[in-house]
């Protein structure tokens, strides 16, 4: 990083999360509003949020840190990166949800609950944005638990056997997990306050804790890290705390799966990185541990994905595996590692959202989501098919798509740190990922149609409102693959914040 950034008071950090919260409140209270109006309000809110996110990025690149309410909210490059991921992905998922929901709520017990759906969707996005801009360590916990609460009913939205089971597990396991994080946050606060080096400034603010972290006793730091890791790790789907993830991501309505896999778990990794990275310099052992945990997660996730027949569960397990890459990168603590981890976070948000949308499109068109019940869709659904394969190759890290560059950065970072075993496992996982997702795609789109399959007699391509978000995401995957330097200025600054171990 160049010079110390300037601090500027601004209302934008507050607006960016209060806007969706307000929209959500309006949508929930006005249950008789027409569905089209609900959709328009949601889309418009997310357009505004994306715009504010872009403005934040612009300001942050001008070496400015935005703060609100006496630094209670603070937007630096890392926060701006998260906001600019959540906003647009949220927008595309909202757009996509319109037709998807039209089909699914016209029958079944979920009918006439669209106002709840859109209200909770806006709250879900709002709480995620809040978590990314807050600078208060306790409020970070509150925001992350709030994302669980707002998304809990969305996971159980269909209210049938599978959805209810997933919803129960989701709420229960994540609340237990996140309680550990609260304890970790409290210890972090107590540790920072106990150093007596803050000179009267609040020990609740993460930016202040960062300054005194080196004075926190080592063993207190270790306990704090353990609690934070269990807490935020559960929410981020890090193995062995991942069992809730495939259930919730597979049973939720597809637009929600997009957000759960695309951004929510990233946001928890962000919280983990924000809090744990301040201990890297004093407690370097933790970096090896995080890398080991990351490699374990990536391998376990992909091995479990290998045996899936359900497309959504397959993608969910692959998300577990990809979180391993991000953790290994960020956990390394070096500039290159953090750059790779954050870059992968961005890329994974793009192509995993894309893949979930493609699977949702297949479900929309055929009503089936098991690989064994599907086949030969390439002629009837050319756009979906092309988008799926682009996403799959990006996920597998195939050049010249975006996933290749971030994975390459992580391999290089691991190798430069001398962790050859980790780099080896990461490459092996990448090959397995290729096998898993491409095999599934070949069967669904190119394979022979199973004889007595119930669905697809008259399968058609999905409507434009669904395939436009897909093509935008696919286009971004290609664009970031060909021009990997585009996100460099922002990622460079964001990685500089996390890379407390230096370049």
């Amino acid at each position: 990083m160049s010079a110390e950034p300037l601090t500027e008071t601004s209302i934008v950090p507050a607006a960016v999360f209060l806007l969706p919260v307000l929209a959500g409140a309006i949508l929930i209270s006005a249950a008789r509003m027409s569905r089209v109006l609900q959709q328009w309000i949601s889309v418009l809110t997310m357009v505004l949020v994306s715009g504010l996110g872009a403005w934040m990025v612009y300001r942050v690149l001008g070496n400015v840190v935005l703060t609100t309410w006496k630094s209670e909210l603070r937007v630096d490059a890392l926060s701006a990166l998260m906001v600019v991921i959540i906003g647009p992905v949220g927008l595309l998922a909202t757009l996509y949800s319109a037709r998807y929901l039209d089909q699914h709520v016209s029958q079944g017990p979920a009918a006439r609950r669209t106002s709840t759906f859109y209200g909770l969707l806006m709250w879900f996005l709002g709480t995620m944005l809040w978590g990314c801009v807050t600078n208060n360590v306790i409020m970070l916990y509150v925001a992350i638990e709030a994302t669980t609460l707002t998304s809990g009913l969305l996971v159980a939205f269909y209210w049938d056997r599978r959805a209810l089971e997933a919803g129960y597990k989701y709420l229960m396991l994540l609340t237990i997990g996140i309680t550990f994080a609260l304890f970790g946050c409290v210890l972090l606060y107590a540790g920072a306050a106990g150093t007596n080096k803050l000179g009267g400034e609040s020990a609740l603010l993460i930016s202040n804790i960062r300054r005194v972290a080196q004075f926190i006793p080592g063993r207190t730091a270790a306990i704090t890290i353990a609690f934070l890791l269990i807490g935020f790790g559960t929410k981020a789907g890090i193995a062995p705390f991942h069992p809730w993830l495939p259930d919730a991501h597979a049973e939720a309505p597809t637009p929600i799966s997009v957000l759960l896999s695309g951004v929510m778990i990233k946001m928890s990794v962000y919280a983990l990185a924000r809090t744990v990275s301040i201990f890297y310099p004093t407690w370097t052992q933790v970096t090896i541990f995080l890398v080991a945990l990351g490699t374990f997660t990536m391998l376990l996730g992909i091995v479990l994905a290998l045996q899936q027949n359900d497309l959504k569960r397959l993608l969910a397990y692959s998300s577990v595996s990809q979180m391993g890459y991000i953790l290994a990168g960020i956990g390394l603590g070096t500039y290159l590692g953090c750059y790779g981890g954050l870059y992968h976070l961005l890329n994974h948000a793009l192509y995993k959202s894309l893949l979930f949308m493609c699977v949702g499109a297949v479900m929309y068109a055929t009503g089936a989501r098991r690989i064994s019940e599907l086949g030969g869709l390439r002629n009837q659904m050319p756009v979906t098919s092309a988008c799926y394969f682009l996403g799959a190759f990006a996920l597998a890290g195939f050049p010249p798509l975006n996933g290749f560059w971030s994975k390459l950065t992580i391999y290089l970072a691991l190798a430069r740190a001398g962790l050859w075993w980790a780099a080896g496992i990461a490459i092996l996982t990448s090959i397995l990922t290729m096998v898993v997702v491409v095999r599934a795609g070949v069967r669904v789109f190119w394979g022979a149609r199973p004889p007595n399959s119930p669905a697809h007699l008259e399968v058609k391509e999905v409507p434009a409102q669904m395939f436009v978000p897909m093509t935008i995401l696919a286009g971004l995957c290609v664009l970031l693959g060909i021009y990997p330097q585009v996100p460099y200025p922002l990622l460079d600054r964001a990685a500089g914040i996390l890379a407390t171990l230096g370049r």
Partner: protein
Amino acid sequence: MNPAGLHTDLIETLSLTLVITSVAAVEMRRLKFSIIAYLCQALLIVALLLSFASVNHALYWWAATAFVTKAILTPWFLFRAIRGVDDHELKPVIGFGPSVVIVALLMMGFFRLAHSKVALLAPSGLAQMDVFRTNLAVASTVFALGLYAVLTRRDAIKAVIGLCLLENGVHLSLVSLAPGLSETALFGVATEVVVTVFLLLYVIGGVRQVFGTTDTFRLRELRW
């Protein structure tokens, strides 16, 4: 803050009674009694917070929030969830005999651990004092008992009670670990738990409708 003004004996007595209510909440077979034990615990927590508040006035707010959320709303939601159904808990994984032994061991272990190693958790001068040590020891014991209940009980409602204990443990520790916490933060933390309990019981209500039971072992649609 002037710790000399604390009623140490009162606090110690309240703390120990608190642990007993946790054991009762975990071990009672009738859910109704279990919820009553939880209610008693909530009231004890409020009393404890009030007695600490004589030296740290911010805790009056905390006590008021805890009273509303823990002693009124949470038990109300829980009672509503068991209304009109058989409130005998489903047989837990670990029977009563072994469970009591495990709970006793957990209690002794955590109490000793937290009491002797308190400097690890809270490197501040405040936490070294006896009252706060006891507070932390009680908090971690309640936390451990809650976790034990969540992990070993089949009945979803009992698991929710365990979750409440878990949260109570963490909230109690705030008294010693984070005396300067702002009201908004406390309010956020406390409200969140009530909303969690409400949503969980709402989903459990759906589970009971669709599955006809609150036995979490019967939730086995999703495997691998």
